[in-house]
């Protein structure tokens, strides 16, 4: 606006232009909202049609499920946020209304199973359990033809538990994924010990001192802390006590049956 209006004329002109701007703003906004409306209806119909053809795929096919969840995360939408039952007056997200809760029910049901497995093994592993072990236990109780469950599903199920208080979370120690169902965190020494135990299934004080160059006292305290949390079991029937990770109870080879 290089031309600088002066005096009353300027005053009028500016009022007119601001009116124009306002009206322009308005129709921009209305066209905006209408385009939003069309987009919303298109999305609704697409979702509806998608639900018809692929609703059950989500439940049965893990790779499809992973892709679906990944995309939702990509656009920052959480289909699991609200219950499917909440398709009430103004509750319930598009997803739950349209997909009829097949996504919700699958993940929440899995999360319930995870909570039950963690609860049952709390005594023997102190609330720290490998995702692989959780999957094995759930798969062993699954009825035939039930949905195939992957570790990725379990991690996603655990993440849905966030709003229920901070006790459930997932963590990686070394190359292994764990689910923690207790609020206490592991300190660096303790996770280093657990990581070392992943190799052979156990650690000894001298092994830690040799590999991690720790003084005996430090190795001993880290191990004792884990033992007192039931996160390590001790085998005293060997010359140097071996501290085993309880997760290995399931991984010791299958064939070694009988004496």
């Amino acid at each position, binding site marked *: 606006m290089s031309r600088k209006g002066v005096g009353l004329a300027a005053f009028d002109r500016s009022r007119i232009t601001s009116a124009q701007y306002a009206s322009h703003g308005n129709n921009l906004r209305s066209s905006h909202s209408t385009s939003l409306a069309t*987009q919303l209806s298109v999305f609704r119909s697409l979702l509806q049609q998608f639900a018809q053809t692929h609703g059950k795929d989500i439940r049965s096919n893990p790779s499809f499920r992973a892709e679906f969840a990944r995309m939702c995360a990509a656009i920052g939408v959480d289909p699991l946020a609200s219950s499917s039952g909440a398709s009430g007056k*103004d509750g*319930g997200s598009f997803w739950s209304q349209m997909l009829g809760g097949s996504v919700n029910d699958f993940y929440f049901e899995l999360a319930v199973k995870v909570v039950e497995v963690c609860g049952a093994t709390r005594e023997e592993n102190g609330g720290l359990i490998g995702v692989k072990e959780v999957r094995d236990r759930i798969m062993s109780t699954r009825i035939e033809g039930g949905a195939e469950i992957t570790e990725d599903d379990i991690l996603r199920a655990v993440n849905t538990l966030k709003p229920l208080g901070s006790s459930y979370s997932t963590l990686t120690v070394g190359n292994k994924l764990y689910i923690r169902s207790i609020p206490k965190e592991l300190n660096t020494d303790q996770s280093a010990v657990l990581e070392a135990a992943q190799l052979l299934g156990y650690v000894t004080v001298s092994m830690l001192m040799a590999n991690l160059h720790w003084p005996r006292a430090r190795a001993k305290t880290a191990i004792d802390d884990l033992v007192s949390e039931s996160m390590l079991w001790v085998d005293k029937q060997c010359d140097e006590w071996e501290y085993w990770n309880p997760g290995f109870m399931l991984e010791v080879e299958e064939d070694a049956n009988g004496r």
Partner: protein
Amino acid sequence: MFLKSIDLTTALRPSYLPDEVLLFVQDNVGLYEGKSKIPDHQNGSVYLTSHRICYVDNADPRKNSAAIDLKDIDRFEFYAGFLKSSPKITLIPKPSKRSSVQSRAVSSLGSPSRSATSSPLSRTDSPFRVPTTEPPPASTATWICPICSFSNPVPSNFDPATASAHTPLAPCLACGIKPPLALVLKAAISSVTNRPPPSSSQFSGAPLPIRGRTDLPLSPSDTSTRPHSQSPISNSNGALQSNTRASFQCPRCTFENHPSLLSCELCGAPLISQDPSSGLDNSTLRAESPGPTLSHLQLPGIENESIKLSFRAGGEKIFYERLKGCMTQRKWLLQGAPPVPRPNRASGTESGISWSGTSTPTGERMKTVGIAGLEQRRLEVQKNNEIIIGNAFEDLEALMASAKEIVALAESFASSNGNTSSESSAVANALGLVTTKDMLGGGSNSESLYITELSRNLAEFLTDDARGVLRKAGGIISLVDLWAMFNRARGGVELVSPSDFEKAARLWEKLKLPVRLRQFKSGVLVVQGSDRTDEKTIKALLAWLSSLHSVPPDKELAWDWQTFGRGVTAHDTAEHFGWSIGVAEEELEMAEDRGALCREESDEGLKFWENWIDPDQSPSSDQPYNVI
């Protein structure tokens, strides 16, 4: 007054008779007697069940809650409200002197509300479900799509007479493009001329002999008009009812639908009465009030006044529909009747693609839908048994693309008008599209009725003595475990999401329910009775620990256990009080924090003892002697 007082459960909700099923809940409702308002009955929620209508007051539920037995109601009228006066339903009691059958017959006939369908009269008691057979080829009108020349059936509820620019048209099945209005009009009119006489677009309620008629004149692709943005409250309580799920019977083909469906799965008849305007809060712009046409007989000398229910926040139409369904079913008579068969929810949706495609006035052409639609059509024909996941991903791509656009638009929409000025949000509101991301993903964060009902339901689940969930958990249970237990009890269907569960739990305090949510220092959330306090817990712990002074141990102990007693682990505490180990740890650490306990770490794990190191910290321990 035929209002009776009712007793409430611990969750301040009407406690139901054994076979009574809750059909509908609606909050902020007021009661009128005759013309005048009933004092302190003006703000509560009304529960419609198969036997009664219960009113639970918000202010003082215990004192002024009331119920009306359906069997006392002679007839009921619907008043859709005008300008400021909110919609009401008037319940006229039976004249107590003579229950003339004649007047009853008149009344049941006399209320053909304007609603699209009135339930067929000759109802066999157990509504046997029509088998979902492959619908026969459409005999109704079809229009040819100008784009892909696919012959689409004219939606059965498309009435050429009242059709106008506003009537939503179903897009073409193949390419998803909205047809021009003229084309559909022409097709519909041409079909009307050559169709058999009783062809009024609205299926009149002629009594249908249920058995044997398989070739129902159904149009396969019946399109229900644009479902109200204000979708009816899914029978929220029904959905919450874990075992018997109240279903909603379709007035036209008596098919048992899932309460949350808007149009019947089988015949597509709209489950709630039609209302052309699709505005969000349609209480203001209402066509004409569907009042009863028949002038009701003035029976002289009715002593008890009629009761009016005034709905101040909508939901009256759904209430009216459900009440009508109830009154016809007269469930309270079939005391011993077998329960309504559960509709199988997963009824094959393969058979009919119920497009609920909506068209918008501007009919903007959507490229992506067209092509994807064509592709989908071809695949649909070829793919009957094996599932091609490949195209599923394609659909997923299309779906996600449009979702992405919405999110982008929603964000730009919010940012463009910055302070979302009231006027622009009003526009958005009017168009029923205040789409923030959470509406798309997380559902509305407003305190919906669903959450409050879930909250009450949860409180009941906890405190109901038969199940004794809270009692068995020792009076305190972690929120995660409760969530798992609650969903486990629902048998894996319609599960409650953690975030809704937590929202419901946070409402207990406001709803003055007997349970509380509590957060420990470590962040763990637990649920406990509202009367539970730390002091009581500490007293219980100390009482137990001091009792160990007199219990001789089974094996030799190295310390003077008469003086010091014994250390207890979280596991021992959990076993003694019935807590979970997690809860036991938290309570012990709380007691330690308050100075009542001290800890011993050893290879036996962590043990807690009475605090003999600093005895004057522990609350006035009754032992007079100072040990140290």
